[in-house]
């Protein structure tokens, strides 16, 4: 694998990571998407996506409903194929390794790339503590026991800004928390398995505004350690938290979605090059 540094163009333009961070030492790309076509059965849902995502940054996917932004996100940890009949063509490179290569175990991919969903989904049969360590326990490597496990729970809950709120009731069911707390519990659960990348599919869309701000603060903190890709329908949110932004759109119902333009967030919002992006950013549709 030699293309870890290859500069991959996008459909519309070729914004490099160099733009905003030219002075800093260039970090290699964490994820590269190459000529990705995504299908549900025979239906081509998303066509020809090429995109590169830097490490330890926040990338936001924006676009109107149905444009395929969530679909693209789900291909990045091979969750797309969980849907019956769903498949992809093309490559997704994680540090140069194609996660769709035949010898790749999707389970290991998902241990490297964590995911947080639109609606908080703590496991209803488990306590808060068990929820946080669910990933580790069910992965069946007996490395973590007792105190080590306790440490991981505390670190993960602190990492998700939830520790102070729940430290006295770790044995209570996770389903008893508020919506915002449940979502942070899910983030704690995701970071407990120490992934490299965190995918977030509209993580705040089911939450009230205070919980949303808490999640956004958390995302800003997490990016010092993780590469974060977040799907959002909220452009202000993308503006607030993302370093880079990718805009997806589709020509019409039944047409495949496309990546229209991507680049540093401030460029995308102040100086977009594509007319569709300008229209969307200015709120003319979507």
């Amino acid at each position, binding site marked *: 694998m030699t293309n870890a540094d290859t500069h991959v163009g996008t459909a519309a333009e070729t914004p490099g990571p160099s733009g905003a961070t030219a002075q800093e030492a260039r970090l290699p790309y964490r994820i590269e998407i190459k000529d990705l076509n995504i299908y549900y059965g025979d239906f081509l849902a998303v066509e020809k996506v090429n995109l590169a995502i830097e490490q330890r940054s926040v990338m936001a996917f924006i676009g109107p409903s149905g444009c395929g932004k969530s679909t693209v996100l789900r291909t990045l*940890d091979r*969750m797309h194929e*969980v849907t*019956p009949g769903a498949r992809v063509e093309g490559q997704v490179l994680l540090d140069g390794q194609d996660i769709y290569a035949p010898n790749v175990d999707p*389970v*290991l*991919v*998902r*241990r*490297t790339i*964590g*995911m947080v*969903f639109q*609606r908080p*989904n*703590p*496991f*209803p*049969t488990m306590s808060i503590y068990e929820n946080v360590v*669910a*990933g580790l326990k*069910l*992965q*069946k490597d007996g490395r973590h026991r007792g105190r080590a496990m306790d440490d991981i729970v505390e670190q993960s809950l602190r990492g998700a800004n939830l520790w102070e709120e729940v430290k006295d009731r770790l044995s*209570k*069911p996770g*389903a*008893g928390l508020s919506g915002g707390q449940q979502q942070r519990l*899910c983030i704690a*659960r*995701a970071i407990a*398995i120490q992934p490299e990348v965190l995918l977030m599919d509209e993580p705040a869309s089911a939450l009230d505004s205070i919980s949303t701000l808490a999640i956004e603060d958390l995302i800003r903190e997490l990016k010092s350690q993780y590469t974060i890709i977040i799907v959002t329908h909220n452009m202000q949110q993308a503006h607030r938290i993302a370093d880079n932004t990718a805009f997806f759109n589709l020509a019409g119902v039944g047409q495949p979605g496309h990546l229209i333009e991507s680049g540093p967030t401030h460029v995308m919002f102040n100086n977009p090059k594509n007319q569709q992006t300008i229209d969307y950013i200015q709120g003319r549709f979507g």
Partner: protein
Amino acid sequence: MGDATNDPRVPEGTVVLTASGAGGPGGPTAGTLDVDPDRLTGRRLPRYAAWVCLAVTVAVGVLVRITGITIIGLADWVVALAASFIGYTAWTLVVEGRRHAVDRLATTAIYAAAAAALVPLFWILITLVVKGFSVLSWDFLTSTMRNVNPRAEGGGVAHAIVGTLEQVAIAAVISVPVGILTAVYLVEYGRGRLAKAISFFVDVMTGIPSIVAGMFIYTFWILTLGFPTSGLAAGLALSILMVPVVIRATEEILKIVPNELREGALALGVPKYKVILRIVLPTAISGIITGVMLAVARVTGETAPLLLTTFLAQDMNGNPFSGNQASLPVFIWDQIQRGTTASLDRAWGGALVLIIIVMIFYAGARVLAAIYAPKKV
């Protein structure tokens, strides 16, 4: 004023106030006076209508009873009910109009249907309790029919209780794993033709008459394969009836486990089989237990397949793998066939024990479901 109230745009009965209202004689009240006082209350039967009907029913009943005059031989209470029913409907028709008469007629019929559905249940339960408890004793529960003249008094159901519990346990041990695993296949893995075929034939299996299941086990297990008649054969026959019930019940429950839980676990890098075993099944366990217990309760009362597979024994046979074994339903069947007062008493006693066992399974289903349900607090 008058013009305004006749204006088609103004809803009938609206109080119309105009600038001239204060000046015109009777102006402010003109609108309200036009309103039909029954506009909202309608013409309804008076509140005492139901009491009148009751009185008519009693009066007609007493009259028929005393005079003995009746119509085409109907019983007094039937004539009384019919008279008040017809009178009530006619009254509604005159006072409230056809639509409301039909509505009252339908309401009466629906109330009557609900009552008619409950009458046999209470009739059966009361008969069972009254006749059963007069027989039930510690002796009845702990002795067998060994050395008891089946036409005379004495004896008990201990051997039948043991047989029923063992046969149902065998059926459950076979059907629960097969049923749950098949349901897991249908919900979690099944796509394409095989899944469709299995799903279709599970429906087919649901329709197997219980006597056919018994016939099959007898000819296949006992005649062709040469195994002896035993409680095991009975358990096998019962499991044919139980498997499709467990599959359908489990399938329904697994389908309502939210997909988000599966995805959440998969995204943590948990292999799919562990997602099913550690997340999906524990979430669904309370519903699965309910389904299994209801299936157990259903096969506990089956008689026909047992008649053909394990027959009857008058003595205790604790070993379900060899020899005839008694069971409560076949015990009851046998005692009815004997036809003496003593044997019928035993049949009622056995029936009460059987229904108590079935009720314990039902109650157990509720208790276990509550214990295993996911907790919120």
